């Protein structure tokens, strides 16, 4: 059964159209980031800068941070974002996997209730939590610290890693663990020696989501941070973009850099994303 010629042409035209709509804005982000400020606001319109420049990227990477320098602050914020997102990912995966194994394999009372309890945390609008959390974090003296953000993010993201890992563990055959235990392995021994090595794809997918969620988070970071000590890249970009006379090329350069880590990660682990996000969710 061969598809008709008209159909083949139609789907390829549709795919190209989709590609243009998706990649167009991206391309514009990049072009704006390498256009000199003058050309961005000049008449006639420049589709591509006549003097492309990478000076904004150089500034971001090389200028010294002294509080007022926006370019350098972008770099500092990127580093903050990396520390916060990596710390959050590491902790939430470690803690979440342990709990996930219990939910996937062990029988105990209130199992379903607890699992849905964790899941409903993920569904909560953050605005419900942010008011008292602000007061708590302030009382602990953790306002404007990376640690304050990591603690907050872990509690928000752990339910997610718990849910995805528990779905993943359930797809593994139980026979292998049972065989290992017949051969004298303990429950935990079987978990670390058999289950974890088999779960690498699931762990990667969950870690990727955890990282992206932490990298993308805005509301808590906006309210909890106030200086370059802990400001993350979304907050730095939003702040600079909100200023009346800001150089939009610099906003775009910051945007390109902020987009690179998640986009690259997502492209590398593309296959895991679809499986990881949807595993178990449809079957309930």
């Amino acid at each position: 059964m061969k598809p008709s010629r008209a159909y083949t042409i139609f789907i390829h035209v549709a795919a190209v159209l989709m590609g243009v709509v998706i990649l167009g804005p991206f391309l514009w982000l990049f072009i704006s980031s390498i256009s000199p400020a003058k050309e961005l606001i000049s008449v006639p319109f420049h589709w591509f800068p006549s003097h492309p420049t990478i000076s904004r990227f150089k500034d971001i990477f090389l200028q010294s941070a002294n509080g007022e320098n926006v370019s350098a602050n972008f770099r500092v914020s990127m580093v903050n974002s990396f520390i916060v997102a990596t710390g959050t990912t590491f902790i939430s995966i470690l803690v979440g996997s342990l709990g996930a194994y219990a939910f996937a394999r062990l029988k105990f009372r209130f199992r379903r209730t607890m699992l849905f309890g964790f899941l409903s945390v993920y569904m909560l609008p953050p605005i419900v939590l942010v008011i008292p959390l602000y007061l708590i974090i302030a009382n602990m003296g953790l306002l404007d610290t990376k640690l304050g953000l990591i603690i907050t993010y872990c509690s928000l993201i752990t339910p997610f890693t718990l849910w995805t890992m528990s779905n993943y563990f359930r797809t593994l055959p139980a026979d292998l663990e049972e065989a290992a235990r017949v051969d004298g392995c303990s429950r935990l021994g079987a978990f670390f020696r058999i289950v974890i090595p088999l779960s690498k794809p699931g762990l990667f997918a969950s870690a990727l989501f955890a990282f992206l969620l932490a990298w993308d988070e805005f509301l808590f970071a906006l309210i909890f941070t106030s200086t370059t000590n802990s400001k993350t890249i979304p907050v730095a970009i939003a702040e600079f973009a909100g200023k009346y006379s800001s150089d939009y090329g610099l906003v775009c350069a910051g945007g390109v850099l902020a987009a690179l880590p998640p986009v690259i990660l997502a492209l590398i682990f593309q296959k895991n994303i679809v499986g990881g996000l949807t595993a178990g969710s449809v079957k309930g």
Partner: protein
Amino acid sequence: MIEEKRNVLERFKSSGRFRGEGILAFALILPSLLVVGWIILYPILRTFWMSFFDIESPLPGSYPFVGLHNYFAAFKSSDFRMVTEHSLYFTFVSTFFELTLGILIALLLNSPLKFRGFWRSIVVIPWALPTIVNGALWKWIYNGNYGVLNELLHVFHLGGQGHNWLGSPFEALNMVIIADIWKNTSLVVFFILAGLQTIPSDLYEAAKVDGSTPIKSFWNITIPLLVPSIMVVVILRTIDAFKVFDIIYIMTKGGPASGTQTISFYTYQQTFSNEYFGYGSALAYLIVIFTLVIAWFYIKLLRQGTLEGVS
């Protein structure tokens, strides 16, 4: 040999080592409970408690108990009605288009395209783009004086000279929705594509033998079998869209003339700009209730199959 191993296993299962799972389970879940519980459970209860008081400062102190007054105040306020309408509009319009486009793109990516892997990876990109970057990018595209959208319309002789796309309230809301759709349709595509891949192809062949056209097969086979995937993704998107905050903050800050103020943004302003912590807490709880109602409403609709015909 296998039989023997199974017998050992059965005996082993009924022996003592499988008991006491409750304790092990508790030990394994305890870290998650500690990480999640203290920073989630307390705030949830605390917000609930605060919503009954007239708190107008972040400082600790004793504030007057006002019962349900904050909730009544919200329902009486015309601002609250307006921001709720904006949120509902944002939620329904963005979810509707994300679902429709998402199904179409998933069908496209499931069809015999050349370089299918390439097209699929393109769809991943907007999803991975940070929300704030997405908002900043579209704000720049819509810019009245230097924006690329006006220039594009100009090139194709469709007008648009100097038009400020975020300049009037209702139009701004729609333009923000477009930016949201551009980013979030990808998530719908992932879910629908995963759903499509579980549909056995012989169903379509059998339908074809029975004289069904591709369009008929789409409505009679594809859509009914996709309902579970559609349901999950619609609920996810609805809940997300209803609490929309980031993209509003970066693109319009709720303006112009409060035209893009959504319920989350309004709550944020009332709480952190005006320091009405009690009123803000009540608003936050109303968001939770709305979210639950919408999710329930959608599930009911989808169960009845009404939405199948619409989408």
